[in-house]
């Protein structure tokens, strides 16, 4: 009998610790499938962040290091500079990448570090219990924006994919979503492209993944997917912002 579906080899047997309806699990699986398809599992070093995915080192069946909050692109730089032929990826949330780690992500992209960044944007801090992220939408209620995000004092949500696309050494930048099967298929293609860019040594690649956080949004998984579609995608347009052809 032909096996048509199974657990990717690049994932361990350890059950995910994520909440029901959270998209981290899908994102993990897509990355793992891509590593399997490129047959690079045994030559990959992953860098996990501080945040909900801090335990990703237990889930990915590849060598992993857990970086300090926001510093994953720097830690990945250290690894990749020593091992230029290894596949190196970071997996970061929006507090990690777009707040405390803005310097590291901007400069890793600007240097064109040949790494792949998986950036989970769920518009909130998950692990600490639902505080405002730099990506929190205007008017969105969180623990630290209890009356809604007010752009007059809290600024507007940061569009990281667009921001990093202004950098010449950023080879591949895209934004995808995981809220429905059609988007998941596109997301997988985009993640694959990002790793292909790294395999071809073309420079920095990042896939921003719009994801849900039902627990901290206070919504059911189905409502959360709908909220993402209706609120996040209009502000954070999906698509490719930079592709290797544009790289000088």
């Amino acid at each position, binding site marked *: 009998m032909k096996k048509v579906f199974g657990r990717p080899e690049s994932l361990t047997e350890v059950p995910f610790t994520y909440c029901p309806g959270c998209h981290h699990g899908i994102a993990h699986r897509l990355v793992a499938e891509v590593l399997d398809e490129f047959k690079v599992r045994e030559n990959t*070093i992953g860098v996990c962040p501080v945040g909900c995915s801090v335990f990703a080192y237990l889930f990915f069946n590849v060598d992993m*290091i857990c970086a300090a909050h926001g510093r994953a692109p720097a830690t990945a730089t250290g690894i990749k500079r020593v091992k230029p032929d290894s596949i190196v990826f970071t997996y970061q949330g929006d507090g990690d990448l777009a707040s405390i780690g803005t310097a590291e992500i901007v400069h890793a992209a600007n240097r064109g570090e040949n790494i792949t960044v998986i950036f989970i944007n769920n518009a909130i801090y998950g692990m600490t219990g639902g505080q405002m992220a730099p990506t929190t939408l205007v008017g969105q209620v969180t623990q630290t924006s209890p009356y809604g995000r007010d752009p007059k004092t809290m600024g507007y949500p940061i569009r990281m994919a667009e921001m990093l696309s202004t950098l010449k050494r950023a080879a591949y930048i895209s934004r995808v979503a995981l809220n429905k099967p059609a988007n998941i298929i596109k997301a997988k293609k985009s993640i694959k492209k990002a790793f292909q860019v790294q395999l071809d040594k073309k420079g920095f690649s990042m896939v921003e993944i719009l994801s849900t956080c039902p627990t901290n949004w206070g919504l059911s998984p189905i409502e959360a997917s709908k909220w993402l579609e209706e609120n996040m995608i209009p502000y954070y347009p999906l698509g490719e912002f930079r592709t290797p052809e544009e790289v000088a």
Partner: protein
Amino acid sequence: MGEKMLMKGNEAIGEAAIRAGCRYYFGYPITPQSELTAYMAKKLLKMKDAAFVQAESEIAAINMVYGAASTGVRVMTSSSSPGISLKQEGISYIACSEVPCVVVNMQRGGPGLGDIQPSQADYFQAVKGGGHGDYHLIVLAPSSVQELVDLTMDAFDLADKYTNPAMILGDGLIGQMMEAVEFKERPKVELPDKSGWTLTGCKGREHRYVVSFDLDPNILEKWNLKINEKYKKLKEKEVRYEAVNLENADLVIVAYGTVARIAKTTIQMAKKEGFNIGLIRPITLFPFPEKIIANTAGKTKKFLTVEMSLGQMVEDVKLAVNGKAEVNFYGRAGGIIPSPEEILKEAKKYL
């Protein structure tokens, strides 16, 4: 015999590191250590299987060190006081993860932005941990450019031996001065095999990880105790100091680095005036040479600790003396270097 060269302290560290097999350097410019960053750029950018990155910040630099160190290579970063403060979070992660690396601090006057003159005011930060949590660095304090070279090479060996970050604690004076140095042939040191923990890709084995946390307090306590065992071993096996003129000394100066060198001149001046002054110069600040100080306290009743700070190492001297002798202190702050004359004047108060 090795070759002799005239070198500036900061550049001598770079050359020593490269000769010790360090091919990876991540740093950020800051006075008075920038010559070291520039030296590493000049050398490593031209070498194969090597990397130099001018990081976006000291924070990024130490986290690049963390990544590189986790693959098992010899790696270094350097800075001066305010920059070392920025690195502390990363150093704490590295110490907890038990990966080796070398960090150089050419201290300048503080606190705050301070100035760019030599200082020893980062002693507490260097020897008591510096970042959050229970950990120590292996701290080496050179007092000549030759010793900078020798101790830099030793720092890589010690870091590998104990899988712990090692720090060279110098100051702006030693970093900036030029002296003749010799790169000696070094005896082969037996070092532990790294293949059991390095991140290389999991070909032919189970996947592994380098992390600095465990949410189970029982496991984290065991982890702390395991790390603490290394510090006990360091205290047993790696203490280094220089003792000068301790026999029948009327007073013993305790000083490290640049200040110890100045104190040696004080001792000569005192001799001419008929005073017998001794010196204990800790070379390892962690592990601290407690025993020689305790033993000397049994014979000499007066100590004078001299530092370019307002009194930091003196606390460890007092702990070692443990009430058996009088411990006095003289310090200059803000980047002022004490002269041999003023140390002698201070010493005479107790003679």
